[in-house]
């Protein structure tokens, strides 16, 4: 009687089969909306610093080492993987990858550094990214005339075609000076 019940148990256990994952030897896919390690695309990044401002754990730090170079340091050691940085990014430069195998013996292994080249705005003196991939430069292809530095200093007006009257107007535009100047 004892043996038959044991055999019955074994048969019951064999019915569903082995459910244990063979994880470290075989990869295990993540669910579709999984938020793993954030990944920066340095071609898209305009260096606005929105991710740094919104990070709840303050893992992202922006630093202007000089007027032209802005360094963004992501310290993944205290990251919450909340995905807020990718939400606020206006250029979709940050994506939450499905990378979760981040176990290390060294904290420095989960850091990311992005070096961005910035140019200063002539009007306000603050920085923005100076490449053909950012929003302002993309707009210039549709008719913005910002090649002239004086025109570029003001808020530009866009036209579909090259308008010589508007160009003349913007060429002669003098930006309002500050009180102290």
């Amino acid at each position, binding site marked *: 009687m004892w043996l038959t019940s044991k055999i019955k148990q074994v048969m019951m256990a064999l019915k569903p089969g082995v*459910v244990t994952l063979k994880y470290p030897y075989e990869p295990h896919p993540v669910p579709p909306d999984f938020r793993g390690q954030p990944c920066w695309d340095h071609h898209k990044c305009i260096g606005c610093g929105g991710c740094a401002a919104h990070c*709840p754990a303050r893992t992202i730090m922006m630093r202007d080492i000089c007027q032209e170079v802005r360094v963004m340091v992501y310290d993944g*050691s205290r990251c919450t993987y909340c995905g807020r940085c990718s939400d606020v990014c206006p250029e979709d430069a940050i994506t939450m990858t499905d990378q*979760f195998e*981040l176990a290390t013996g060294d904290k420095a292994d989960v850091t*990311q550094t992005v070096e961005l080249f910035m140019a200063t705005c002539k009007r306000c003196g603050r920085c923005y990214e100076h490449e053909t991939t950012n929003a302002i430069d993309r707009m210039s292809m549709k008719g913005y005339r910002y090649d002239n530095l004086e025109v570029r200093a003001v808020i530009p007006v866009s036209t579909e075609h090259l308008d010589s009257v508007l160009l003349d107007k913007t060429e002669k535009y003098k930006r309002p000076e500050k009180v102290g100047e």
Partner: protein
Amino acid sequence: MLANLAKKMFPRSLWVYHCNSGACNGCDIEILNVLTPFYDIERFGMKLVTSPRHGDVMLISGAVTRPTLPLVKRVYEAMPQPKLVFGIGSCTIGGNMWFDCYNVCGGAEKAVPVNYFVPGCPPRPEAIIYGVALALGLVDKKAAPVELKQMEFPIDMYTRKKAWEERNVIYKLLED
């Protein structure tokens, strides 16, 4: 001889002591999840023990809060040599959102030496298994520091303007 034997036996089966140092219970649930038949950690000879004197490995979860700091230190001292410490979750590694909070140490590293870090908030059970397998030498380390640089160095604004004026024919067309 006993030391050699211990060295040989130590990587085979780790007995794990779980120490909660003020965690939110998220990481603790994931650690318990690892012990279930689905993610069977006992494949690697691991076992959860209730006393630090039986344990080889201490799993710390949570940013070490001020009341638990002396207890964590005592638990670490109570464990027999050789011992490993695993930090589970972001709180243990850098303190997570509470890294500069007044009642938190800001990571277990400031209380006890931590050998392996498993980031995540909470880490997936797979991530914990991966960390364990990394310690056992079953898998290779995947995480590495990333350095990205915009290779396209911008031309000076004034040089660019000069080049534009020289090259562009639109200016010539407008003059006509």
